[in-house]
Each structure stands twice: as structure tokens, then as C-alpha cells.
């Protein structure tokens, strides 16, 4: 049923979609945007995703931050005013196992009231331990819902297991993770079946876990050196995707990262976005310059500082929200 309605919505003209999406967003979230920043803890990875800058087959310098470096990064980031943080690693059970993440959370929670993670998929018990350590949110993207493309693009590492990744949000929900972000990496194949499958995934999870705050991300692939080149998703299609997501899921959060260029972000966010990253560094140790000259997982397009993003929001009569959840 969602599929059918989705197809009908995608067929509507863009302006109609945009108006409806904006109306629903204002009704449900008002004129507010939550701000967050990513913090890369490590770039070790056991997977070989053909599109990613952290792929195990790439000869890049690998690093992971120790507790003091994490504290320095947190201090630098917290000084900008950011309060919601997304901790990222590559997916390496060897270099960034549960113990490393728990220790990192212990440091990070001294600086931030809310912590989300984007790391390798784990077991329910491991997520439970992370919740105990102060983790509120999880981002895990299926990348593509096309099993054939998935198998081709993930030739090695545990990520080869499509089903295990697909069931990750459910394991996190069972463990008591409060906010779960799903997404598809747009550009790996035809975006439409992927987006429709993502909506189906979300729909099923919402029914099963009504207490979880789900959100959606639609990262558009950018070319990475030495990786497969993306099928381009046009700006118009990106707008279409955001608007249809908002109409189908009026209360779900929608994230928009600094992958997207400033001008695009500024025009698109009122149509459905609820959370934006700002002042992002996508290298390990990128905030306190504790490590320099390292390779990024992907390059960012919107390089404005947090203060600049805040000013932009205020100029457009939106309230930038820094604290919308606080660990108890």
C-alpha cells in the first residue's frame, strides 16, 4: 500500500509536493531546525564498499583517536555550541570494537547531552551496553535495498550480509535506542526502487517499535577517487524524494548533511528537513586538528561554520535548536 501511494505521490508535480511537504513540516515541527555535528573517531574498516573513501582496499592512513584526543575533539566541538553529536567510525570489529565505543562514549558524554553513533552493526546486547553508556541514537544505512547491487558493491567484510544489516534497526530498537536513522545511499543504482524500499522498511519498523523516534537520511553519492562512480540523482529528484518522505511520514525526522551544497540546503530545508549538520569535519581528528592531512570518508560541500548556519536559519526566520534531547 505504501508502494502504491508512494508511486502516486512521485507522479505529482514538484511545486504541489513542495507546498504540501512544507505545510506538513510546519504543522508538525514548526519553524525549528535541530543542529548536530559528526565526530569521526576512527577510519579503520573491514569492509570493501566500492563507493567509500574508508574502504579496506584503499591505501589511506588509518587512525583512531585515544581518550585524550577524543576529549580534545569534544572540547573543540562543544566550544562551537554544538550539543548533539554523531560519533562515527569505519566498520571494524578489530580496531573499534564495543569496548572502544563504550570508552569513547564515557568521554564524550561529559561534553554533550545527547550522543548518536554510526558504527558497525552490532548485536542487541551490545546496543544495550551502549545505551547504558549514554548512547541515545543510531544511524545505520542499508545503502541499497537491491540485493544484487548490494552483493556487487560489498565484496568483502561482514557488510556482505544484507539481512544482518537490514535487521540492525530492529535490534537497536529492542535494546532501547531512542532515535534511529535509516537511509539509502542515493546514486548506487536507480534511486526510485531504493527509496520505495526504504519507506517500506521504515513503515514496518514504525509499526513494530512505535516508541522509537525514527528519522530518514538521503545521502547523495559524490564521486570518491578510486571508487565506483555514482548514478547522478538530480536536484529536482532530491527535492521530490524529501517531499514525498515528508508527506508519507509526517512525524519522522529528516536529516540533511553537509554533503549537500549550501545553496541547495538553504532552499530545501523548509520543505521537510528537521535536522541539519553544521560545521562538519569528516576526517578523523578534524576539529581540534589533533590529526592533520587525513583522508575524508566523503567530501563536504557546505563548509559554513555553525555560526554561519545559525545566522542563515535566523535570517530565514527559523529557530536553530541545539538541545532537543537530554540523556537522563
Amino acid at each position: 500500500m505504501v508502494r502504491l501511494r508512494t508511486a502516486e505521490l512521485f507522479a505529482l508535480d514538484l511545486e504541489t509536493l513542495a507546498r504540501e511537504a512544507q505545510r506538513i513540516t510546519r504543522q508538525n515541527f514548526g519553524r525549528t531546525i535541530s543542529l548536530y555535528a559528526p565526530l569521526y573517531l576512527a577510519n579503520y574498516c573491514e569492509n570493501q564498499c566500492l563507493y567509500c573513501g574508508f574502504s579496506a582496499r584503499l591505501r589511506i592512513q588509518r587512525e583512531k583517536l585515544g581518550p585524550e584526543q577524543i576529549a580534545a575533539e569534544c572540547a573543540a566541538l562543544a566550544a562551537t555550541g554544538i550539543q548533539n553529536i554523531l560519533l562515527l567510525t569505519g566498520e571494524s570489529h578489530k580496531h573499534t570494537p564495543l569496548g572502544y565505543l563504550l570508552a569513547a562514549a564515557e568521554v564524550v558524554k561529559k561534553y554533550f547531552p545527547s550522543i548518536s553513533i554510526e558504527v558497525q552493526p552490532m548485536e542487541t546486547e551490545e546496543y544495550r551496553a551502549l545505551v547504558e553508556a549514554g548512547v541515545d541514537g543510531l544511524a545505520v544505512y542499508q545503502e541499497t535495498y537491491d540485493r544484487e547491487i548490494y552483493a556487487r558493491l560489498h565484496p568483502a567484510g561482514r557488510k556482505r550480509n544484507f539481512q544482518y544489516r537490514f535487521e540492525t534497526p530492529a535490534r537497536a530498537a529492542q535494546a532501547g535506542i531512542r532515535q534511529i536513522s535509516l537511509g539509502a545511499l542515493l546514486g548506487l543504482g536507480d534511486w526510485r526502487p531504493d527509496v520505495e524500499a526504504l519507506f517500506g522498511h521504515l513503515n514496518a519498523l514504525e509499526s513494530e517499535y512505535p516508541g522509537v523516534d525514527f528519522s530518514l537520511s538521503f545521502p547523495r553519492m559524490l564521486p570518491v577517487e578510486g571508487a565506483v562512480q555514482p548514478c547522478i540523482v538530480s536536484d529536482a529528484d532530491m527535492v521530490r524524494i524529501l517531499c514525498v518522505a515528508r508527506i508519507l511520514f509526517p512525524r519522522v525526522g529528516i536529516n540533511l548533511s553537509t554533503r549537500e551544497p549550501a545553496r541547495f540546503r538553504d532552499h530545501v530545508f523548509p520543505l521537510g528537513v528537521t535536522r541539519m549538520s553544521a560545521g562538519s569535519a569528516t576526517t578523523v581528528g578534524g576539529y581540534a586538528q589533533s590529526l592533520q592531512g587525513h583522508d575524508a570518508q566523503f567530501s563536504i560541500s557546505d563548509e559554513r561554520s555553525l555560526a554561519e548556519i545559525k545566522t542563515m536559519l535566523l535570517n530565514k526566520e527559523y529557530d536553530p535548536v541545539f538541545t532537543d534531547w537530554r540523556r537522563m
Partner: protein
Amino acid sequence: MDEFIIGGRTLSSRFLLGTGKFKSKQELREVICRSGAEVVTVALRRIDLEKNEDNILSYLPENILLLTNTSGARNADEAVRLARLGRAAGHGNWVKIEVINDSKYLLPDNAETIKATEILAAEGFVVLPYMNPDLYAARALVKAGAAAVMPLGSLIGSNQGLRMKTLIEVLIAEISDVPIIVDAGIGRPSHAAEAMEMGAAAVLVNTALATAGDPPRMAEAFAKAIAAGRLAWLAGTGETSPLARASSPLTGFLHG
């Protein structure tokens, strides 16, 4: 004298305000001033416990009674912890219990709300629970020590008005120990007036103001509607009839 008393305190306004969704905190402040509201609710999870310029509390006018709320709590335990944290941080002992474990419809969980109310009322909080309009739950809340009962008019943030009207009328008729405050779903001044004409003691409004074209002006419109509705309730509205009844009957002379 038409006094409005909650938890032993006499309040000057029957218009309670929520503070979410506004485009700026300055606008929120204007709305509060123009509304004449005395009780303003703020989500504990949004209150920045650190000192900084964006702290929402610094935008509240003086003499406002802060009603913290437990928005984000998914069960009684979380609501209780949030309320205690708020009181420990100096935000007073008035708390609106919101326990919601459904992110799609945001409907309150009455059973968990009753549990949290009982615990917090025993600890000396003035507890205003947000609830689904159900008579059994309302009685249990009163028994648990609630200082008011706050049924939803319709889905929160929906601006749909009093979809739960019949059930709220039951609460107004049957719950006499504490005020009934209609919270959630009120989308227009006419909805607020309707609730007050029904005999609700007060209304709590947020989205209808935050999403209005001119929120401060809308706040004034609501204030007038609430006052008018209350006055109508006090005056006693005339009965409705399926037939027309002329105010000066044509056959009146026969009885003169």
C-alpha cells in the same frame, strides 16, 4: 468572583501556553506577553541546564509560572526522573506529565501517566497530567493526587479542535475535585471558546499559535475567545432546540 485555582494557587489567566515550534524565542516572548498567560509549559529536555544565550527560560517574562513538562518520556520511570531533575535544577515543582510511547500519533499512555502522577504528587509536585479523555483514568489521576486533569481535544499538534468532545464533557460533568484543562488539538479561537463554554476550566494551546501567520495577534485572539467562552459558561447558555423559537412569540398576547 470567578477564581481559577490549581494546587492551592490562584491563577490570573485560563490560557496556558506551550512553547514549542516558534520561529524565534523573541516571538515566543511576544506571544506570552500578548496572551496574558500566567502558566507556560517548557519541555525539560529542551531546557539547557548550562548557562548560555539560547536558554529558553531567559526569554520568559517575569512573573510567569513555569510548568515544566516531561515531553520525551516514554514511561513513568523516565517522566519521574525528568521531573526530579527539573526540580533539582531549580525549575520549581509544577510539572505537566507527558508520557508518550508512540512517535507517530503522540498519544499519551494513561496507565504510565497515572503511575508517574502518584509518585510525583507524593513527593510534593503539583502534577498536571496530559491524558486520553477516559473517565476511569481521570478518576485514577485524581486519586493519585493530580492537581488538574488535562485531556486531549484531538491529536496533539493537529489543530483539529474538539474531536473528543463527548468524552471531555463526561470528564467535566464527573470530575469536580480538580480543574479539567483541555490540552492538545485546539486549532482556533473558536475551538477554545467552545471548550470554555462546555465548562472546561482552562485550555492549553501551542501549535495553533506557533503556526499562525501572526502568532502574537493570534495569542490575543485566543485570549479573547477564552474569556468569552468562560463568560458564556458563567452566564449559562440557552438551550438548543430543533425548531425555530421566536424571541417574541406571535401568540404571546393570548397569555397576557
